[in-house]
């Protein structure tokens, strides 16, 4: 039997002239497009994204508004000599509205929502809308920082303990068991009795707890299923080092799940922060939970000053809910079982 020339002739083999990065970029673009399509199939994630977008707008517009307000000089007699510009009235932390209300009586605080203060004022005479907008920025920074830290740790630890197994795995899994049994809020309350918690410390604690907690177990099991794939074997044979395989092959494959946990992480971090500041255990200039805390510690009930409870409470619910909804939308991406096709 004659063996014909086994090298395919020119028409079969296409010489790839495009550079490598361009191919990668195209692939990435394709993947994004596909994922976006799957993500938008469920409207639930889109709703979440819209709400997040709204909050981003809120956070960005605050400094601009503040700059505008400080340019608005006020006549001295209108402001009883205290407030020089509108910025002094609307400042989220130091502001105080001394303007006389109806019948030339000084505006009593907390004042109910009006045109001048759409969300009312708090017991110290500060504008609630301004506080909510200012806090949105803090809340974003805090939530994303804490969630990023926790997801970064969880991904790394999950991938490493899945790849190496053995003692490293056993250690991190027992640690995760311990963290899982830790009652979160009582732990934070206990911690605040020992040291003064501020936003940075709280973010750090939440990030560490989340990073070594339950998320690690889930990410590890995902990484385990990647580890047994043939291409990992191939990478090993090709001489890839341990870290090369972990960072180039395992972690990119569990990233969708990490992203899912990033969203849930923001929700849980902001919820914890809001609860702690509501209980008065957090050192922060202002936050949504603190607005409610002030109202409560000044002795105003829901009946007397509903806007001080309802508005921050709904804001927190919406903010946390939006990230949760995006997470649920990502669920379809992460869990192929749920896909329609």
């Amino acid at each position: 039997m004659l063996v014909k020339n086994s090298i395919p002739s020119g028409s079969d083999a296409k010489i790839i002239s495009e550079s490598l990065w361009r191919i990668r970029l195209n692939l990435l673009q394709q993947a994004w497009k596909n994922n976006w399509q799957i993500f938008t199939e469920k409207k639930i994630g889109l709703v979440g994204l819209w709400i997040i977008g709204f909050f981003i707008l809120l956070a960005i517009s605050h400094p601009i508004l503040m700059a505008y307000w400080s340019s608005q000089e006020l006549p001295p007699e209108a402001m009883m000599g205290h407030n020089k510009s509108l910025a002094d009235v609307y400042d989220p932390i130091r502001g105080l509205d001394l303007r006389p209300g109806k019948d030339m009586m000084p505006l009593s605080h907390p004042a109910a929502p009006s045109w001048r203060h759409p969300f009312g004022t708090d017991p110290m005479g500060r504008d609630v809308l301004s506080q909510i907008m200012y806090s949105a920025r803090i809340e974003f920074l805090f939530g994303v920082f804490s969630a990023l830290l926790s997801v970064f740790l969880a991904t790394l630890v999950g991938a490493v303990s899945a790849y190496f197994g053995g003692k490293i795995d056993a250690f991190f899994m027992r640690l995760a068991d311990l963290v899982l049994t830790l009652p979160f809020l009582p732990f934070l309350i206990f911690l605040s009795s020992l040291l003064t918690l501020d936003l940075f410390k709280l973010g750090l604690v939440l990030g560490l707890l989340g990073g070594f907690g339950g998320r690690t177990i889930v990410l590890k099991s995902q990484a385990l299923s990647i580890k047994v794939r043939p291409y990992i074997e191939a990478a090993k044979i090709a001489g890839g080092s341990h870290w090369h395989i972990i960072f180039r092959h395992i972690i990119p494959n569990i990233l969708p799940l990490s992203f899912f946990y990033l969203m849930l992480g923001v929700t849980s971090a902001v919820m914890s922060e809001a609860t702690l500041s509501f209980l008065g255990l957090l050192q922060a200039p202002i936050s949504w939970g603190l607005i409610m805390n002030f109202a409560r510690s000044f002795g105003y009930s829901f009946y007397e000053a509903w806007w001080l409870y309802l508005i921050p409470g709904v804001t927190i619910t919406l903010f946390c809910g939006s990230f949760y909804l995006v997470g649920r939308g990502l669920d379809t991406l992460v869990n192929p079982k749920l896909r329609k096709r």
Partner: protein
Amino acid sequence: MGAFLLKRTLHIFLILFLFVSLTYLLFQVTPGSVVDKFLGNPKMTPEIIAKIRAQFGLDDPWYVQYFRYLKNVFTGQLGISYSQYPTPVWDILKDRIPRTLVLFLSSRVISFYLGFILGKIIAWKRGSLIDTSTTAVGITFWTMYYPLLAIVNIWLFGFLLGWFPINGFTNPLLWLNAPEGLTVNLIFAYMILTGFIFLILWMIAWLIAKKPELSGKTKKRIIYISPLMVVIIAVLVWGFSGYGKYAWDIIYHMILPIFTLALISFGGTMLLTRDSMMETIQEDYVMAARAKGLPPKLIRDKYAARTALLPVVTSLTLSLGFVLSGGVITESLFSWPGLGRTLLDAALMQDVPLAIGAFAFTGVFVLIAHLVVDILYAVLDPRISIETI
């Protein structure tokens, strides 16, 4: 099953040990000690400070302190509270633990039952109006900022409608005229005892009903009528003893907090049951049951729901922290004198011994709950209970 439970118990004891050690570690790594509070006080001479240090055992090496601490925690000697000065920490905690336990257990049972039943139904009728609306309500309550929900509930039911008291554990006016020697704790202890007897009798009824020679109808009668009888007897006994109004006062104050706490946690159970049922419904044996022509309700309850229950029971452990956090807020907003509020007050007043005690017992509480869930799981899952017979 014995081996499984033994393993879990050992595991939990190990975690308890680690947990208690972690509490100590946190206490040690945070800056400052007991005497630092007096540094600014000019009357405190170095000799007095040295004396206080010696009294608190702060001069000993850390491992001596650590073992002393372990010994004290496991023998229940938690020191004396700063904020309620001469009262030992254990005496404060002893009164509060049962209250938290009752709040937690009853709200958990209600929310689990409600969530499971609702989840079962909406999964069966998926895509219908009931499904969509109930899911939306569940997600709303689940993602809602809990303090807001509690405050709105207090305002709605306590103030606007006036159905329930706004806060507190008892009505002080009623207890003012109570006979000598009658304390809240005594009545509460008897109430817990009543509940306990009720549970035991119901379990006995359940075991009797499980006998194979009984027909389905008799079984149902035994299971549903026997608890009713016990409740009637209990109400009669309490009523005739003359202490009924005191017990009712406590129950009356309990309804709103338990309802509020159950409201946030039923959503999680419901959504999970729904997801779990969706997967179970697609199994082959459910299809086979349908093909046999069994009534749909029977398939739902006896075939699909039994399997779907397992992941939901597992989630009980995971949602424990969530409910416990809710418990702290509930206790603080409803002025409910429980463990969580004690911890919160201790933290606000920097009462370190009380905070350590309350936190350590919260941990013990969580771990016992974990063990209970494990036992429940072992009983429910035939793969574990049959394996070792």
